[in-house]
């Protein structure tokens, strides 16, 4: 934020004074102090954070697409308004997150380019199609629930600008979650057709949901250093457990079932859920752009960006001249 004289110097292993700076940096984090834009930070910390926030921002803007496509079909006026507001929030979250990443020295333009060229990743769940209205309800309830587990944790992380953005995001996600839950309650308790629609959606979405928090701790490469630097405070498996503990009982309560092949079993002693391990090779393939909707998502994002180019250019040019005031008084 504000003007940051990025201290991008001697921030790599082997640079003069790196060890001392790193020790001071890690001591500050251990003490619970936040890192701010403009602070000295290890290059690896900066790069990991840019990567994480960039993926998060991409996920918000790509996440606007599957649900955004259903805005014209929302079945009553309240749902229509709520869905527009929800998708708008996601665009807003992307805006806040790209800004947080920008404080680390990467421009939004560059991040957007990397997204539409397929170089940068976004969350696995948005590589799938939202096939029916019940998918919208399922995404809004359970994907947002999963996101809240992740974002509440990340909001306490060590990088100040990211944490501040996430606090506001979590506040808005609470509306998304309730709105999604409300839709699911209606469908689950509605006609047989509605209930079946919801069960079908849940069956389709359960795999991406199980994969949502990322590869198992046994497989994840990034966890250890991210946890040491308090970028992440909980492992992927811990987050997945937290999600299952909170939401599986609520899913059952609505009279819904989870596909048998997942062998979901509660360990009464520990409170943990046991499940069939997702296929992490498939997960990696999906986030690399081989999911059912991956090509469509990128095409849509690219189209919006390219078709908007003349508008961005025109306003850049117009900003150089004096304008008629917009105020209406």
């Amino acid at each position, binding site marked *: 934020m504000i003007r940051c004289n990025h201290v991008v110097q001697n921030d790599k292993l082997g640079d003069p004074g790196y060890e001392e700076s790193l020790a001071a940096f890690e001591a500050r984090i251990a003490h619970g102090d936040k890192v701010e834009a403009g602070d000295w930070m290890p290059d690896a910390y900066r790069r990991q954070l840019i990567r994480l926030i960039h993926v998060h921002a991409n996920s918000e803007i790509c996440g606007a697409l599957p649900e955004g496509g259903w805005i014209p079909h929302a079945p009553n*006026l309240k749902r229509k308004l709520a869905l*527009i507001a929800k998708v708008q929030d996601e665009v807003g979250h992307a805006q806040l997150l790209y800004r947080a990443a920008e404080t680390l020295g990467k421009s939004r333009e560059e991040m957007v380019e990397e997204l539409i060229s397929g170089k940068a990743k976004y969350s696995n769940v948005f590589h799938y199609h939202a096939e029916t209205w019940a998918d919208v309800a399922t995404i809004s309830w359970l994907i947002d629930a999963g996101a809240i587990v992740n974002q509440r944790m990340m909001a306490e992380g060590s990088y100040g600008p990211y944490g501040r953005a996430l606090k506001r995001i979590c506040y808005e996600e609470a509306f998304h979650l309730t709105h999604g839950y409300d839709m699911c309650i209606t469908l689950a308790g509605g006609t047989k057709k*509605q209930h079946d629609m919801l069960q079908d959606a849940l069956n389709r979405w359960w795999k991406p949901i199980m994969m949502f928090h990322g590869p198992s701790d046994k497989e994840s490469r990034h966890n250890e250093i991210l946890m040491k630097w308090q970028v992440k405070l909980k492992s992927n498996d811990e987050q997945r457990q937290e999600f299952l503990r909170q939401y599986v009982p609520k899913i059952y309560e609505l009279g819904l079932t989870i596909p048998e092949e997942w062998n979901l079993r509660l360990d009464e002693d520990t409170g943990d859920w046991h499940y069939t391990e997702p296929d992490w090779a498939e997960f990696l393939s999906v986030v690399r752009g081989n999911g059912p909707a991956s090509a469509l998502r990128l095409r849509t994002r690219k189209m919006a960006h390219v078709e908007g180019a003349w*508008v961005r250019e025109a306003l850049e040019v117009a900003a150089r001249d004096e304008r008629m005031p917009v105020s*209406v008084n």
Partner: protein
Amino acid sequence: MKKTFASPDSVSGESRDALIDLIYRLADDDLILGHRNSVWTGLAPILEADIAMSSLAQDEIGQAVAYYRLLHDLGEPDPDTLAFTRSAQDYRCASLTLLDRGDWAFSTVRQYFYDVYKTHRLASLSDGTYAPLAQLARKVRGEQKYHMMHSRMWVSRLGDATDESRERMQRSVDTLYGHALGLFEPTPFEQIIADHGFCTTESGLFETWRDEVHSMLDHAGLTIPGDVTPKHGGRRGQHLPELQLLLDEMQQVYRLEPTAQW
């Protein structure tokens, strides 16, 4: 001093029919335009513009709901039934509102034409004699003021920024001007509405609209097309085929289980 009508019970006969027709026009314009604008959510030229356009859509649909409630108080069906079960010929929106969103120039020129109209419409309704409508009009004037700032910002900047922006804006002005004139289509109820003081006449609104729009377009370096025939029909329920397509899209999920809750 004109007689005021404090509640739905205080209007009857042809004045009631006229009032209902007026409110249908207000509600349907807002719902249909809000529907079109909402499609930009997630797809606008830049994130900041996306968020603002989405708010406009929400305000418009939100205002439509409020007008439908006034209609319901006057004995018409409830808001969701009105929005999700009527067929195209029952709608009273102007053709300006129902055209597909087009490019950003098309959407912002349309929004500007509509916002100038709506601002003056609301000003007149605020002083109108049907108290529930006047109260609502006063309540939404803040939202409308923001819409006007938003529209002026876009038109004044895109009008003469680059060759491409000027060309796109001029093309949209040329296409949309006749549809904008259709906002002021005379109706059989016009005289009753004016006589009862619900709202001013369409021709009165048009004059204010024309003066303001012409001065702004002129300032923005855009030309007002000459000899344009107003696109009428919308206020009588005679619509372009786009409206039926829009309604099919809007009512698609609702029709799966029309008697169910969603």
